[in-house]
Each structure stands twice: as C-alpha cells, then as structure tokens.
C-alpha cells in the first residue's frame, strides 16, 4: 500500500504543478484583461468630466472655429472663473437655503421618527402607513397647486419657498431611514433614562439624537447635494433676480445666450465650462470628505429593499 502511494505521488506531483502553473498564468491573463477593461470603462466614464475641467482653463481664442478642438489647454488661464464673481449674491441665497434645509431636514426627520422607532402607541401602524403612502404621491401632481398655495401664503418670490419644506419631517424616505437607524439602539437606554427621571423629550434630545449623528450627517449631505443645484423649485417660485439661486442664475445666463443669437460666443462657452466645474465642486468635496458615511447611508437604504 505504502509503495503504491510513494509511486503514484511523484507521478502526480509534476502533473498538478504544471496544472497550477497553467491556471496561474490563466489567472494573470484574466486579471490583466480585467484591468484593461476597467481602465477603458473608467476612461470613458470620466472623460467628459476631464474635458470640462480642461476646457474651463482654455482661453476663448483657443475654442474659435478654425482652431481644431483639442483636449489640453494651449493657453492656460484662470480668467474664465472670474464670471463666478458676478453670481455672489445668488451664491449667498443658495447657501442660506442649503443651511436651513441641511439642518432641519435631518432634525425633523429624527423628531418624527423617534416615537415610530422607539415607542409603542395607539395607531402606530396606521401612522406608519400614512407616512409611507406619501412616497407614492408624485411631486408633479403637487407642482401647480403648491404654486398656488405658496402664492396664497405670500411665499412666492421669497427664499422661504425653498426651505419651508424642511420642517415637516423631511419626507417619508428620510423618516424611514432614521427609523431603521434608531431601531438599532438597545431599548434599555430609554428605560434607564426614564428611571433617572428623564421625560421623552429629554430622552430624545440628550440620548437618542446624539447617537444619530451618522444618519443626520448622511441626510444633511444628501440635502446639500439636492439643493445645491436644484432647478425645479427655484424656477417655479423665484422670480426677481435678487432672489435667484446660483443654479437658476446660471440657467438664465445660459438662456440669455441662446436667445441672443444662434452662436454662443467662444468666451461664453469657456465660461460655461468654468461654471460647470464650479457647480461640481461642492458635491465632489462632500463625497470625498464623507465617502464612508455616504456608502453607509446607501447600505442602510439597501437593507430596506
């Protein structure tokens, strides 16, 4: 028996070795193919983005008809970004809107989610399904009547029209996210605090809310991104130039260019690219700063499916 094994072992060994070698090289080739394919994908995906950045640094003469379209700037210049200076009042409007929304959307979502996540009360199931059913109402149906309503309330052409929605729970999806998150904390925390004489409001503000910082941050970032270049809301409600948000001001800038004639001047075209880069900066920065939290929030959303 033993000799048999000894005999067969050296026979089998080189065979399996060469097989291993073969699979190793095959694996390497496969890996190389994967890298090449991914690189190709990535290049295709980020090419427009890179082009936007490059063109924003080109001089207007470079983009004239006759000059072949090219990728790298030949006359590198920051001059195109000067146009952003014109929009400073609009930028302030946008920042006000963002500050209020990014603060109160997550806070009010936490407030509303608290009893649903951590208390039992009469009618809980009904309330929960009412909140969830509001997801189904398309905003397009509300577009015209909301406009009329805001006119009645005197919100028309005022910045308040852009942030008044932040105080009512911040939308069903945000409430749902917070409920999912709050359910994760042990129930004993509330009971211990209650024995110490805390009421529900104290429990919420001193114990639960501080623990929600991650989900608050996630919702706040989403709110910043949503309102940073929001177009539909400002287009409907903001009519005087001093009230325009940056996005809306850019839109009218572009529209004026279109209405002036059939050809957009080269100057304006490089300026548009500078604006585009400017618009992309905020979401990019937020993403790179809070990447882990963003992914965490997406994961929390993924569980619900």
């Amino acid at each position, binding site marked *: 028996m033993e000799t048999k094994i000894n005999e067969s072992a050296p026979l089998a060994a080189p065979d399996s070795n060469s097989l291993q070698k073969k699979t190793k090289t095959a694996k390497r080739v496969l890996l190389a193919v994967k890298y090449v394919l991914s690189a190709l994908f990535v290049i295709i*995906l980020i090419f427009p983005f890179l082009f936007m950045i490059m063109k924003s640094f080109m001089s207007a003469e470079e983009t004239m008809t006759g000059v072949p379209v090219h990728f790298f700037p030949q006359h590198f210049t920051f001059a195109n970004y000067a146009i952003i200076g014109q929009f400073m009042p609009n930028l302030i409007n946008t920042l006000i809107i963002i500050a209020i929304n990014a603060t109160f959307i997550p806070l009010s979502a936490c407030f509303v989610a608290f009893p649903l996540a951590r208390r039992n009360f009469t009618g809980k199931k009904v309330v929960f399904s009412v909140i969830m059913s509001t997801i189904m109402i398309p905003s397009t149906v509300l577009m*015209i009547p909301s406009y009329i309503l805001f006119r009645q309330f005197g919100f028309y052409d005022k910045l308040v029209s852009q942030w008044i929605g932040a105080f009512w729970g911040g939308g069903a999806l945000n*409430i749902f996210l917070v409920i999912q998150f709050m359910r994760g904390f042990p129930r004993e925390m509330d009971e211990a605090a209650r024995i110490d004489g805390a009421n529900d409001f104290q429990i*919420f503000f001193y114990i639960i809310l501080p623990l929600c910082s991650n989900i608050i941050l996630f919702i706040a970032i989403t709110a910043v991104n949503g309102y940073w270049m929001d177009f539909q809301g400002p287009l409907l409600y903001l009519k005087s130039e001093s009230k325009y948000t940056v*996005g809306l001001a850019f839109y009218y800038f572009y529209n004026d260019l279109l209405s002036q004639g059939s050809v957009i001047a080269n100057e304006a075209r490089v300026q548009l690219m500078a604006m*585009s880069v400017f618009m992309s900066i905020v979401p990019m920065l937020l993403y790179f700063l809070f990447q882990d939290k963003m992914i965490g929030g*997406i994961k929390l959303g993924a569980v619900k499916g």
Partner: protein
Amino acid sequence: MVKAKKQLSVQEQFRRSAMIRRLKSDLVCYIFLLPFFVGAVVFTAYPIILSCVYSFTDFNGAYATEWGIFNFKALFDFSLLGEAKNVFTSLGLTFLYVIVSSTVSLTLSYAFALFVRRKIPGIKVIRVLCYLPCLIPGLASGFLWTDLLGYGTATATRPASYGLFNTWLTNLGLPAFPFFSDANTAMFTLILTGIWGVGGGMIMWLAAFENIPPDLYEAADLDGASYMRKLFSITIPLSSPMIFYNLVTGLIAGLQVFGTYATYGVGEGGSLYFIAIRIYTTAFKSPYNFGLACAEGWLLFIIIAALTLLLFKTTNWVHYGDEN
C-alpha cells in the same frame, strides 16, 4: 361587602391611572409626530384637494370663470382643438424614455457592479472614479453635453458649434452626427448620455451584494457551481428586492423627468417634450391654463398609481428571504 367595594374601586383607580398614563404617553408620541401631520395636511393634502378642484375649472392663476369637466374632455379630444394629441405625444415620449433608459441603466450598472465586485487591487479607486460623473449636477452636465455634442448647423434652440465628438467623427472621415440638434436623434442622445450615470446604480448594487451571506457562495463552490450558476441562483434572486425597489422608484421618478428642461428645453421639434415639462408649460406659459395643467397632473398620477400597483401585483419573482 364594604371591603369588596373598596377593593373594586382600588382596581378601578389602578385601571384609570394606567389609562391616563397610556393616554399621556400616546399624546407625547403624537407631539413628536405633529410636524409630519402639519406638513402632510398643509403642503400635501390641501394642495391635492386644490388640484382636484382646479382641474374642473378654467383657472388661469388669478380667477376662474367656468366649471365643468371640459379639461378632462380636452385631454381625450383628438380633434385639432383638443389637447389629446399633445398630451399623448408627451406621454409616449416619457414612456419611451423611461423604459429604454431604465432598462439600459439597470442592466449596465448591474453588470458593472458584478464586474467591479471582485477583490482585485485598486478596485476602490476604480469604484470612486466610476461614481465621479454622478456627482456633476444636472445643469452642469447639460452644459457639458451640449458643448461636447455640438453640431454644425444652428437651429432655433441650439447654437452652432462643432463639439469634440463631431470633430472626432469628421476626423475619422465619418459624417457628423446631429445629436441634440435633430428631432430624430435627440432622444437617443439623451439616453446615451444617461449611461454616464451608471456609477450611482453600481454603488447601490455593491451595497446590496454585501448583504448576501458569503456562506451561500462557499456552499455553491463546494458543489462546483459555475459562475453563471451562482449568478442566477444566488446573486440575482438575493438582490431581487433591491431590483424591484429600483424598478418602482425609477419608474416613478422617470415618469416625472423634468431636469432636462434646464438645458435641452423641450428638445428639437418637441422631441424631449416630457409630460412633466408639458404640465409646467401648460400652466406657466401663455395662456396660463392652470386648470388643464391640474388635469394633466391627475392623468399622470393615475398612470403612475396604476403602474405601481401593477408592478406590486407581479412580485412573485422577488425573493424576500425567510418570512418572519
């Protein structure tokens, strides 16, 4: 007798105080819920009722003179005077866009996520770079695409400029492609540019894949299952709730597409005149027909509700794991 009575009343008292405590705690819970209810009544329920009322009038933003079902009649009136032709063209365009773009982006982002899922060195960088285009705001990407895809001849809505893509095409000896400048190619172009957003879907699928227990794959490997077998027996079924969720939200959001209006307007020859844009222009462009716009909104709502219900009725392919 007296003792029994006293005992009863003690019990009664106990029951009462428990009820009061219960009422109090319920009340506190509803105080927490109050913001939602105020918002829901004032900013959702009331506008919905308003919209319902206005859809039966000729309200123009200031006053109404007539009552009746003429708006709904106009919606289905295919004669020259009626709105049906316009509205159903918009609905058709919207459906075409939703079906093609969501299918394309769903399959592409899923395939992409499967591909990027492997643990190879540098995969994190690849993921971040893929997500980059999703971070460009719609307005900015609109500026960018009109620049990149510029076409030679000027039109009413699109300025003359020769973009990079057409320069490449002509350098290769091919004819220039009109992209957004032609009614026949604008929709195709819009869907094409949508592909650059697959990174967002990809990140979400990757998160969904992480929720699949790894021991399932280990067991499958022991049984010698092929890659395709694992894909169709483990990965797809176990991410099906997420696929379903994305189908529904994609459908609801897609049917209301409006953002394209910022840079592409209604498209060359109305080729991108989606229903949400039509609702907007019906109300806010002369002759300011708010009533009709409300009726159009209701038509869209009914369509969305019916399709969502239909999708929920066909969920037997969705795998919800153990029911508990």
